[in-house]
């Protein structure tokens, strides 16, 4: 299973890189989201994957049992998902706004400062 996940991570990274190299701002954001997903999976995998043992303490115990999924990567990823949502929503609105003002979402047409326009 790890091998499959490794492949998916590589795919997400590769697709993310391809998308952020496009000229369209929307594609740039899509690329960032893909890469972000790849990074989340990477962290998740590197904490080792465990089936059917979520880091929840049994109602009759005080500590976790012997085999359990690592809670730390999960906490990290949870944070990352939420933060990346903040970033994405801001970026999406910014793209919308930029298009309204500049009239394009082509990065190559946005690289001049006000004075050159």
């Amino acid at each position: 299973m790890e091998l499959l996940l490794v492949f998916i991570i590589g795919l997400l990274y590769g697709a993310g890189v391809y998308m952020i190299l496009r000229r369209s701002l929307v594609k740039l954001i899509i690329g960032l989201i893909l890469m972000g997903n790849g990074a989340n999976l990477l962290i998740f995998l590197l904490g080792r994957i465990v089936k059917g043992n979520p880091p929840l303490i049994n109602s009759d115990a005080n500590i976790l049992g012997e085999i359990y999924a690592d809670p730390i990567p999960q906490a990290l990823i949870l944070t990352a998902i939420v933060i990346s949502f903040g970033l994405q929503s801001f970026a999406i609105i910014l793209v919308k706004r930029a298009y309204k003002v500049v009239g394009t979402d082509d990065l190559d047409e946005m690289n001049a400062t006000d004075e050159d326009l």
Partner: protein
Amino acid sequence: MLIAVLSGFILALSLVITGKWIKGKGAPLVGLFPLALFGYFVSFFPAIMKGESLTFTYEWIPSLGVNLSFHLDGLSLLFCLLITGIGALVFFYTAPYLKEHIYLDRFFGYLSMFMGSMLGLVLSDNIITLFVFWELTSISSFFLIGFNNESEESRRSAMMALSMTGIGGLFLLASMIVLGTVGGSYEISTLLGSADMIKEHENYLWIIGLLFIGAFTKSAQFPFHFWLPDAMKAPTPVSTYLHSATMVKAGIYLLARFTPMLGETVYWNGTLIIIGSITMVYAAIHAVFRLDLKGILAYSTISALGILVFLIGLGTDQALLAAAVFILVHALYKATLFLITGIIDHETGTRDVSKLSGLNKVMLPVGIAGILAAISNAGIPPSFGFVGKDLIYEATLGFETLIWVLSGVALLTNICLMYAGFQAGIKPFTGQLPKAYEKVHLPSPLMWVPPLLLGSLGMVFGLMPFLIDKSLIQAVVNAMIRGGALDVELKLWHGFNLVLLLSGITLAAGFLLYYFLKPSALLEAKTNRWEKLSPKSLTKGLGGIFSGISKLWTGFFQNGYLRYYLIFALTFLTFILAYKLFKETELYINFNDLTGITFYEVAAMVIIAFAVLFTVLTKSRLAAVASLGVVGYSICLVFLFYSAPDLAMTQFSIDTLTVILFVLVIYNLPKYLKLSNQISRVRDGIMSVIFGALISILTLEVLNEPVLKETSQFYAENAYTLAKGKNVVNVILVDFRGTDTFVEITVLAIAALGVYSLLKLQLKSTEKE
């Protein structure tokens, strides 16, 4: 002592509050401050006279061996007196000179900062502190030279001076560090003890080579001299202060200070003699053809600095004595000449020597000062300059080899310098007074008393050398000689000998030159033709090439296209990763620890793979966003399979929100086009495949490493016992790392605010353009 050194900086700071008062009525009173310092340093005379030296140490960064240790001996005292004495006169002189200038307070601030730095420089015993003060003089002089900051030329010469002396300073730092490492100490007084060891060390040549570059740039030695004439764009009080006694003498001070430690080797003496003589002759000849009074003075200053380097290079007791005396002689007459030039410029509005004459009829005291300075400069008895020049000839005649070459070089220089001095000090005050200048009047006494005082001192010391020979000069010379215990007695009259003959030849030739060679624009123009070959033009050309290359370089990397930045960064990252991975790691897959595969997992993976590919390849934006949602939900499934229910829930809700947000704004956006051409798509495709593959391989390799579970173990054991929570992930987020989560919420709140304001923002039609 620390207070004395730092007081300049304190005064500069205090101007923030007192600036207004100083701009108005207080201006003439600021001079009392350097005067007080002058008095303070005079009080050390008795101790120095007895041959003692004083040390003051204040710890600064003891762990690095950097201390604020100050050492006052004859050499330092001479410089301190020049810095504060001439400083006081310059302060007084500035008050009427820049009267009602809007930045007069700043000027005094820069000036006192500069004075403080110079004092620190000549008093430092620690070579790192010495470097710090050295650079501080460069920085404060930058502000002084560029004081007329509305003038482009002035700004450019300030930049030139700063870059030359600043770069020289870095060489000095390098030299000091090598010296400190070789000698095992950063204190000059300690290093003096290991002088022999340093001189035999293999890095000796590095030490002196780097030191020379530092000293030569500061003291405007050939081929680094060109910043000095340019620096004449500064207001005249600055030129007076920087070029007669302080800034440019810092290099001389450095050489003098290190002579007992590093001197007396063929490299040290040979280099100094050669560079010194080239500089003194080159600049002296240049000085002859200048028309601008300040230009004349600039080149004669360079030439005088050349003489000093040359004398230190000769290195005999006589030569060092001559250098010590000449430092004082030069400071006195050069400051006078600069000051009277300032007065002439201020009152008549011109510095063109060919237009000036007969001014003694309207400003007699200034004329007297000029003539006194010219006499001392020419070395006509009974001036102090005569004593100095005699000593120079004695030094060249007393050297072991090449007596006639050295004396000839000195003779030629002295003749030209005498001519230059006459041009600056006598020519404007003799002959017919042009009609245009008949209404010129004498300026405020604060302006004409300082030059008259300095000019007269040149005579007083000449007539009564006993005033300073035992008290000051002797200590100065002994500080330059290793274990020096020379008995100094200065005399005006040495009897009839070869030295007197050389002096006579100098005077006769100088007078003849003055009589026959009249300054003219034609001659100056002729010499200017050689400018193309001068070090200044060469440096400028070199600078041009450098800035051209840097422009290309910047244009290549900073081209304004986001994707090229990304490509550069990613390519670099890929190469570094790949190199490290394939060079140093053994690649293998550990099949034993893998978890098994079930059908639904494979299904989820296949869905992700197809959805990703579809997102990348589709031509419809809506489809891309939708399949992005599919990717997110499938990842959600992966989290669910592998025991992360919290993640699955978060991913699910966030992904839903993102897709909704996207869909909401999508209809506002332009057409979803393929903007890139075929070639760049292929190129980016190859890059992404390589990068993705690399990440995969990297992940596989990391999976081979054992994983540390100590931290997880801690949370697993304490989640309930300490924080009373059964869901460990939640406990980590809201309890153990609660502050982080709080900050995260803040970040989200700020993002929400940003989104809200971007949505609500109504731009005026003009701002939309």
